[in-house]
């Protein structure tokens, strides 16, 4: 325990004075009696009948002394060590993620409860300490730098807005810990509902105290929406919707699907307690647009009851194959849906290559390259500074590893691939190695002026690859991947909380928010337009000069955020997490305790004096 105003102890000098006053009590009125014989017996009897006669004899004095001590302690403002300490540097990490927007039973959100707690913590400033406020959801940001002024903390708290993003405490700790260790007597307090991923590898040298807010609440959430064009008929789209009930009871409701605002279907749903449900919707939809799924149930968190996905229009995929005929490559390309393949045995002029989505160079090298994406099989593009090159020839390459996470390697297994002859592949800086052999890369991918360039260091015919199922799948993956790149699919559907980054030659760009409003996007030095992170779910639109707007669907799809059961997870195993309701019971400024004690003592003294119990 420490004291915010230790000078108040000077008032302790009053204690001897009080004792003196007690002995110099006010003069009592004199009353003559025939004899004090009986009165002495009265006094003796009252004392004998009092087990604590010594105490009772001076009970009023004791009460007054304790009351004065309580007053002095209250004025000295004692504080609990480890809760609020004078000269403390307090870093408050405020969770502003989606789950903190949960409406509690008393009509306030978890975020508002956490803000109140932050205000209570700002009492540290009265003791000459300092406080810093950091907000975090998917990213962390300083809401208020270290300050000694409670008003600045209050201003910062007033400006706090909850987001629909997930919660990454690790980001906040990465920001807070380096700042904290520069301070003397630092302490970090996390105000959250516990719906965050336990950070790993974060320095916890500065003590971190977790305070949990909120109570368990029921919620049903859309946890996935995947819209694809049908493999059989790409004019049809298939919509896979996943939802989960995080409540302890079964929930019934309805689900509506809209295509560009037009209702497609509405279904009643019923999900068991803690269960999951998947629904599939199908529609013929060539032109593409925005798919919107809305869940109609009553729960505590609305932002996960809607989901969107942008579906690009159906494109005709024209591929130019340069190489000898017939080939396995031609057959594999023609097996892909909606692909038109033109085969030539020798390079064509650059004008002729216009209009082709992809050019496949099957062992044929040309000075020119296609205006789209290029695949070089066993050959290299023309010699340029930023291009791949093939070196000396090597016999038998041993497959070491491949990038399983890359979209081009999706569903592929290279274990059975045997390469009889290959050449050493030299890739430009920034390339991705898709397949690695013992001597170096076998397949690499890198962006160039027009699109993506993929280079293999071996011709398929010099390996058993065309005989494996992975070969046509790889080419199909290339088609889909390059199409997604062209249609900016990675941009069109993104997770809430991340910044929107758009590449383009435009002079200016603007971001249109789903709830209305328009913001200019700043241009970075690398030629990209970047918005601040997107904090709300919905459909955004990016306007680049006079081009048609580029729609971006932003969704939550975070089970951890949608699960509104309060989790008390410690950062360090075994560390105790304090719930807000429990923490409220912990006295901060202990002066209130002593002030209450003072009031009680005065009441007791008044009663004792007037009822003459022990006097």
């Amino acid at each position: 325990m420490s004291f915010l105003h230790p000078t108040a102890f000077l008032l302790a000098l009053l204690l001897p004075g009080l004792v003196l006053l007690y002995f110099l009590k006010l003069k009592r009125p004199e009353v003559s009696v025939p004899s004090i014989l009986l009165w002495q017996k009265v006094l003796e009897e009252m004392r004998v009948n009092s087990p604590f006669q010594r105490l009772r004899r001076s009970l009023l004095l004791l009460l007054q002394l304790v009351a004065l001590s309580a007053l002095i302690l209250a004025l000295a403002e004692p504080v609990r060590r480890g809760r609020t300490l004078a000269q403390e540097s307090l870093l408050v990490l405020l969770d502003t993620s989606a789950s903190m927007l949960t409406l509690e039973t008393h009509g306030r959100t978890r975020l508002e409860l956490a803000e109140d707690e932050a205000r209570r913590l700002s009492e540290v400033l009265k003791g000459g300490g300092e406080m810093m406020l950091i907000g975090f959801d998917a990213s962390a940001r300083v809401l208020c730098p270290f300050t000694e002024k409670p008003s600045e903390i209050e201003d910062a708290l007033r400006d706090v807005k909850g987001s629909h993003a997930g919660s990454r405490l690790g980001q906040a700790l990465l920001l807070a810990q380096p700042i904290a260790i520069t301070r003397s007597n630092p302490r970090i307090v996390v105000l959250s509902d516990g719906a965050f991923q336990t950070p790993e590898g974060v320095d916890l040298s500065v003590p971190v105290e977790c305070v949990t807010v909120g109570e368990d609440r029921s919620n049903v959430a859309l946890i996935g929406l995947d819209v694809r064009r049908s493999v059989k008929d790409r004019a049809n789209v298939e919509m896979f919707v996943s939802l989960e009930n995080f409540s302890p009871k079964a929930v019934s409701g309805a689900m509506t699907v809209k295509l560009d605002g037009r209702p497609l279907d509405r279904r009643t749903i019923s999900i068991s307690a803690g269960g999951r449900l998947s629904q599939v919707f199908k529609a013929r939809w060539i032109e593409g647009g925005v798919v919107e799924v809305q869940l109609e149930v009553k729960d505590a968190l609305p932002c996960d009851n809607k989901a969107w996905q942008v579906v690009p229009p159906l494109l005709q995929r024209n591929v130019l194959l340069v190489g000898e005929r017939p080939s396995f490559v031609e057959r594999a390309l023609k097996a892909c849906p909606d692909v038109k393949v033109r085969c030539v045995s020798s390079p064509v002029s650059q004008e002729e290559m216009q209009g082709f989505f992809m050019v496949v160079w099957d062992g044929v090298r040309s000075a020119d390259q296609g205006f789209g994406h290029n695949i070089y099989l066993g050959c290299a593009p023309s010699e340029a500074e930023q291009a791949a090159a093939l070196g000396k020839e090597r016999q038998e390459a041993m497959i070491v590893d491949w990038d399983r996470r890359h979209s081009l390697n999706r569903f592929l297994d290279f274990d059975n691939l045997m390469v009889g002859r290959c050449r050493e592949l030299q890739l430009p800086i920034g390339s991705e190695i898709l397949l690695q052999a013992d001597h170096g890369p076998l397949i690499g991918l890198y962006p160039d002026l027009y699109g993506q360039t993929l280079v293999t260091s071996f011709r398929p015919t010099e390996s058993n690859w065309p005989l494996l199922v992975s070969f046509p799948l790889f080419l199909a993956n290339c088609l889909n991947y390059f199409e997604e790149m062209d249609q900016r699919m990675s941009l069109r559907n993104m997770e809430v909380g991340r910044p929107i980054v758009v590449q383009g030659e435009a002079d200016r760009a603007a971001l249109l928010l789903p709830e209305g409003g328009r913001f200019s996007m700043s241009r970075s030095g690398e030629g990209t337009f970047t918005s601040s992170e997107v904090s709300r779910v919905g459909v955004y639109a990016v306007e680049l000069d006079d081009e048609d707007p580029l729609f971006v669907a932003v969704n939550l799809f975070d089970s951890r955020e949608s699960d509104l059961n309060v989790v008390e997870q410690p950062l360090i195993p075994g560390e105790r997490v304090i719930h807000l309701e429990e923490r409220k019971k912990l006295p901060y400024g202990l002066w209130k305790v002593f002030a209450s004690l003072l009031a009680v003592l005065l009441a007791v003294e008044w009663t004792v004096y007037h009822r003459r119990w022990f006097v």
Partner: protein
Amino acid sequence: MEEPLIDQEVLRRLEQLAWISRKMSRGNLRGERRSRRRGLSAEFEDYRNYVPGDDLRFLDWKIYGRLERLFIKLFTAEEDLRLYVLLDVSRSMAFGEPEKLLYAKRVAAALGYISLSNMDTLAVESFAGKTLHAFGPCRGKGNAGRYFDFLSDLEIGEETSLYSTFRHFALTHRRRGIVVILSDFYDLAGYEEAFRQLFAGDFEVIALQILSPQEIHPDLEGDVKLVDVETGLTTDISMGERAMASYRKSLAVFSEELKSALLQRGGHYLLVSTEVPFDRLVMQVLRKRGLVR
């Protein structure tokens, strides 16, 4: 003109009363009450055999003539009764409304008048720290006026000392009799030793503890400093229900102990509140107790 202690009507009624003594006292003077002793009154009581040395004047010669045996005639003795009144005039007796001393004077006057009316011997002493004033012994109603004047002239003395007073009384009064003590018995030194002095002299002791209503039900509130009017000693006390209950209990215990101390030795005790008219006390209460008839 000063109000008389007792009016004539009361005196007239008092003349019909007489003291009843359980212990027949051996008076020097022949009185008007029978004694167990054979005496010289005119009333024959019995015979007994003559033994040498008997007064030949009391031989019954008629019986000797008939029986030729010598018998002595015995007569009933008539003795006077001695009433001693010890009146406490200490400062504590000046307390109360009406004043305890005035009340005690009136009671003493009434009791003394009964004695004088019956030709008993009356002796009165006032005491505080010691015996201050004495009246008597005297007999006969003719002394009543002087007696009343004596009582009226008594003034408040100093501190009570029962022991020295009673010891002095026992030493100076050898003749047995009824001793009526009119006092509040407030003596910090106690009364046990004092009474022992009296009972050793074979006196019949009647103690009237006179208290005022203000003592029985004190009207005190708040924090007060109590001053003993006799000793000047003080004590601080905060009056409340608890203190008042304790006082009432202490007074009851004090009176009860006083009563026990007297009854164990054959004495009499009566707690008298000055609220009770003194004539009612004498003519009803004392009569009911069998002290007067």
